[in-house]
């Protein structure tokens, strides 16, 4: 489920992302935020070294509407 909130100028939507960071190799991956995510949570396997990644940040970023 993708969470979004209205942006500062109402036209831009803010989409919420979760950033996972591998504590071993430092690989960062960005995916859509899912309910239950929180910073420091153990997340999916690292695509590079298959260690368990941790959520390092959750943030919202503005996307311009495609229309």
């Amino acid at each position: 489920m993708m969470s979004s909130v209205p942006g500062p100028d109402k036209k831009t939507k803010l989409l919420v992302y979760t950033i996972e960071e591998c504590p071993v190799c430092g690989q960062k991956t960005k995916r859509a935020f899912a309910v239950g995510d929180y910073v420091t949570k153990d997340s999916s396997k690292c695509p590079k070294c298959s260690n368990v990644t941790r959520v390092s940040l959750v943030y919202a970023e503005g996307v311009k509407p495609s229309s």
Partner: protein
Amino acid sequence: MLTISSAVLQVSTSDITTYLYIAFFGLLFIVQFAFGTRLQSYFAINEIGRGLNKLKVMKDKARKDAIDYLVNVGKASNDPTQRVDQFLDYVTIMPVDIDPSGLVGKIDHVVTTNNDRVRTEVGALLNQTNPVTISISENLLEVATSLNQIHKIVRHFYLLGKKTNSYFTLVQLQMLMPMIIQEADALLNATDSFKMGEPVGDGIGPVVVSRLMAGKEKRVIAKDTMMAVTEYKGRKLYVLKADGPMAYVGQPGVAIQKIVGDMGVKPSAIVMIDAALKLEGEKTGEIAEGVGAAIGGIGVEKFQIEEAATKAKVPLYAILVKQSLIEAITVMRKEIAEAADRVTEVLNRVIEEKTKEGDEVVVAGIGNTLGVAQ
């Protein structure tokens, strides 16, 4: 003959126009003079009325959101509508301030009593014990209560101004209306982030501190507040933040008092990291440094920290991340999240500059820890 009459006619037409002109502006002047304020009041009443309607829609939505969350996520066993409505009108009576000595302790007592009450009542309402859900419910009810209060107060002055035909009451309210709506809008937007359990902009301090706490042994140092001991370049750091990922702010004041008091730690510096309201025109995510206790709220925590620091003669340093009110209480913006690395750099520099090896340092991440564990 013909030329003369047309000339006469010409003169009289232009005269009439002139008189009409004078009469029109004269009338306008009299109307403006006699009914000007009444007209202004009329416009003000209209504008405030429209704003008031908006506020009503907002407070109803916040109330509905809270009820829906209690039912759908909190699995409230009975219909919580009536209970929520009682909640919205619950009052906290602040202690008397004509004898100010010891006032902070009294305020603390009243506020703590209220916070405990909210948690127990919400806990009893829900059919589950997940602390995150309970804390989110608390926050949603708080938002609904705030919006309810705002609506009530605006309505009070609107009706009072209308009843007494008080031009100044109405015009003042009219001028404040855009800012009131903006604040109410921010509160309403906050419910969306809270429901999802997303970190809010105010949580930047906890985000930075959580990195220092990760993998360390944590202990409860005050209500809803966690502490860990770690090390940085030969300094012993006592790091604290509210207990996440619940939507808590914790009691950093009590925690710091305990660290420098009961635990007998002699820190050479207390560094506080917090979100700070930016001024219009300032950039979101900008970092400011300063001295003093960086903490908002009613003032109890600030007082406790200042007192503890003064008693122990420990300098207080502040690292602030600028953001607007709406950014502080809604999902954390990228600009704010990405300030975390820079804040860590500043923190390291402050520690290196202000303390030496072997020293003890307290680092506090202030703010709501929703979506930020440790």
